[in-house]
């Protein structure tokens, strides 16, 4: 990034982060749609400190997923602000998926792993021009 050598900001450096954020954004949106439709793939959870209606979780997934998708596109500009927002959003998605894990564990596990990778990719440029 900026404090490195005078190398120009590599388009490929944030390409991985962009691709991953667009991907996790789409996945979050589909996760949200399935939850808003109150599907049977979500298990019924009894007493739970963070219990919310499945539809409510769905709207949260949908809204955050849309923001992640937009940030993924914003990353194409190489903006440092987009990176910072990306880290915050990916962290938020991670925590949301941790909290609603009892409803659909597999999806949440996948989303947690993917968003960890998103955060990593936001801190590490990859590709030929990134050291």
């Amino acid at each position: 990034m900026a404090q490195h050598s005078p190398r120009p900001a590599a388009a490929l450096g944030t390409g991985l982060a962009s691709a991953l954020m667009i991907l996790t954004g789409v996945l979050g949106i589909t996760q949200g749609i399935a939850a808003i439709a109150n599907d049977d793939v979500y298990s019924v959870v009894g007493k739970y400190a963070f219990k919310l209606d499945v539809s409510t979780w769905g709207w949260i997934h949908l809204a955050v997923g849309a923001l992640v998708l937009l940030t993924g596109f914003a990353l194409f500009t190489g903006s440092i602000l987009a990176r910072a927002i990306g880290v915050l959003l990916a962290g938020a998605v991670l925590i949301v998926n941790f909290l609603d894990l009892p409803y659909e564990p597999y999806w949440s596990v996948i989303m947690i792993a993917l968003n960890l990778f998103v955060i990593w990719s936001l801190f590490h440029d990859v590709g030929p021009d990134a050291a």
Partner: protein
Amino acid sequence: MAMADSEGPTPAGGSASPGGAPSSGGPSHSGESPFGGGWWTGSGDSIWASTGVNLAAVIMVITGIAGIVEGIAGIAGGDVFAKVGKYAFKLDVTAWGWIHLIIGILLLLAGIAVYGGARWARMLAVVLTGLSIVANFLALPYQPLWSIVAIGLGVFVIWALFSVPDRQESRS
């Protein structure tokens, strides 16, 4: 890939063997990367320049074959798939099978194209792999563990596709 870190600069255009003697000279040429001319600088002649592309291509072919197998199992309607109740993305197991099969074949072909090192092939491969991940995410309720494996493979493919040197943008 980790091996490359210990190799030192590989002479561009030379017939350097991967296990060549450690370089005794200074690592940097003026104006180049401080790390010298290794695979990460994208000099197309380096043996490492193709290693990353090959990695992505190999995993793509494997992921494609896995998708084809998954698709055939779905089309055959095996009992390995769970019964799913109400679901926004509910499709017949056979329909999901065809989707997996077609995406798997496309991944296999794109993986072979990536082997050629063309830039368009890599961009296409990223999009196709993303599609494969989304399809597996949606089909997860039917066979969760297959989907998890396919998604993991896909993420590895995307990483490999972005982490390889771009020969067209060689700076040497």
